[in-house]
């Protein structure tokens, strides 16, 4: 009898460990978001936003945010910046006109060894209030194999559960397409908390406001556009002169939804220009530079804290799986094109 009890104890521990790891129980884990792309994907490439270009530059602090946050980046005159522009398609070889989504990823390394990593999108907000909503949306809009169109019943059920997603879907249908990485505004989407020296906690979102004026791409221009027009454009621009964005902090007021990435704050909220990002060079992503960086938005310096936004927390684990998978492929020698090598089979 005691032997059975012992077996039960050991078995229960093993089972709960497997559950915590997400191996049993079938709950939604960070792996669910990547599906079989962890195993089946072009080796060495990011599982999302695979097509990108590395950039390097400098962030010049304006000192205006130093009273809001003790983070060193807001006080240091020049902070080295490394980052990546990418398009929203998962396929690393997709044509640039395949998506209206463009992104900027950024790593600022201050002289106190602190790091600030971020991943910004030209979309102004997240479609749904939580990460599960992303899966629900993807599932609801999957084309029906017989009609080639999404099933209206499934789409309706999705909007019933996530009514906030309507505005993102409508926005996407009418939003202008970017004609240049340099002209896009990149938004952080998730909220964070600025921690001041006196202990004040200020909820914040930020965005990169381009110095270059925005020109949308008309449908005709899009149809005529070359496969890599965004990448060719940014190479040309940076070769001529540095390309700049202001890092603008948007400060929430009491009552603004801090933990819901689908709810943007009113445009009239106070803004603080924390500094200017100057992109001075771009380089093919296969040559490294940004290739092996996971732009995990939850790695923030002290002086900035995470909000309880559930999408922010979920991104950390999802990014980590993508990062581990592609670095493993590089280490195993399976990555070829992703690291600029000819395929040798």
């Amino acid at each position, binding site marked *: 009898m*005691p*032997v059975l*009890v*012992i*077996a039960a*104890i*050991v078995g229960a*521990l*093993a089972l*709960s*460990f497997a559950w*915590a*790891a*997400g191996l049993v129980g079938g709950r*939604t*884990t*960070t*792996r669910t978001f990547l599906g079989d792309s962890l195993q089946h994907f072009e080796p060495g490439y990011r599982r999302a936003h695979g097509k990108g270009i590395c950039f390097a530059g400098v962030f010049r602090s304006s000192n205006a945010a130093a009273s809001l946050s003790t983070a060193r980046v807001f006080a240091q005159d020049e902070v080295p910046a490394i980052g990546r522009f990418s398009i929203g398609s998962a396929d690393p070889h997709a044509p640039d006109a395949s998506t209206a989504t463009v992104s900027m990823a950024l790593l600022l390394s201050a002289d*106190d*060894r*602190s*790091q600030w990593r971020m991943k910004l999108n030209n979309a102004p907000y997240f479609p749904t209030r939580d*990460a*599960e909503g992303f899966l629900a949306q993807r599932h609801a809009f999957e084309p029906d194999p017989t009609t080639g169109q999404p099933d209206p019943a499934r789409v309706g059920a999705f909007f019933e559960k996530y009514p906030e997603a309507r505005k993102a879907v409508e926005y996407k249908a009418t939003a202008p397409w970017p004609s240049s990485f340099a002209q896009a505004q990149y938004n952080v989407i998730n909220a964070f908390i600025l921690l001041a020296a006196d202990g004040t906690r200020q909820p914040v979102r930020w965005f990169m406001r381009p110095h270059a004026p925005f020109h949308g791409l008309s449908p005709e221009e899009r149809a005529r556009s070359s496969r890599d027009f965004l990448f060719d454009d940014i190479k040309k621009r940076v070769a001529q002169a540095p390309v700049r964005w202001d890092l603008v902090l948007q400060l929430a007021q009491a009552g603004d939804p801090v933990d819901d990435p689908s709810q943007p704050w009113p445009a009239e909220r106070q803004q603080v220009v924390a500094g200017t990002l100057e992109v001075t060079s771009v380089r093919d992503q296969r040559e490294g530079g940004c*290739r*092996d*960086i*996971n732009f995990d938005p*939850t*790695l923030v310096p*002290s002086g900035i804290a*995470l909000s309880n936004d*559930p999408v*922010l*927390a*979920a991104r*950390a*684990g999802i990014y*980590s*799986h993508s*990062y*581990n998978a592609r*670095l*493993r492929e*590089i*280490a*195993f020698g399976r990555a070829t094109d992703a690291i600029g090598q000819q395929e040798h089979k």
Partner: protein
Amino acid sequence: MQDVPTTRTRSPRHFNLTARLLHWAMAIAIMAMLFIGVAMMSSLALRPVLIDVHQPLGIAILCLALVRLANRFCRPVPALPASIPRWQAVAAHLLHGLLYLLMVGLPVLGWAVRSAGNWPVILLGDWSLPALVPENPVLYAWLRLAHGALAWLLFAIILGHLGAALMHAWVLRDGVFSSMARGASDERAKAGSGSRPTS
């Protein structure tokens, strides 16, 4: 001091208080650490919190493991009872050696993983550790694989250790479990059983 003085001088019946305290504190810490480790790779909501705990807790386990190793080599430890078959005694010694190795090795590996990936090892606030190895994606990938695989190995060994300990406590009742569970003062009433050195 009444019970079997000859046995006590050669080999104590119980681990010393330091060893027992370290054993049970680390048992809790390591189990928590293993669960935190797998949960922070799967959880949608908890990864930022869990990884903030994972790093300082790992370094704490590393420090405690070093103190424990020093205590283990400087203080006499109880011998296994003579009733234990030779193969079991050998297996126990090998697995205990492996446990010590992993207690030290896993935190060091974790520290190296973070370094190779250019991630800071943050203990508290601004207080972070220097890089243990240079930044290198290939090194990162191998260290990360080893860290994960050896953590699962450690969990498996701990389950075996727990199962064996409970067998000694509830089935064999040969004093092996109480050597780590209690001090000598609780043991006065009990008669000493024969023991033999096993190493």
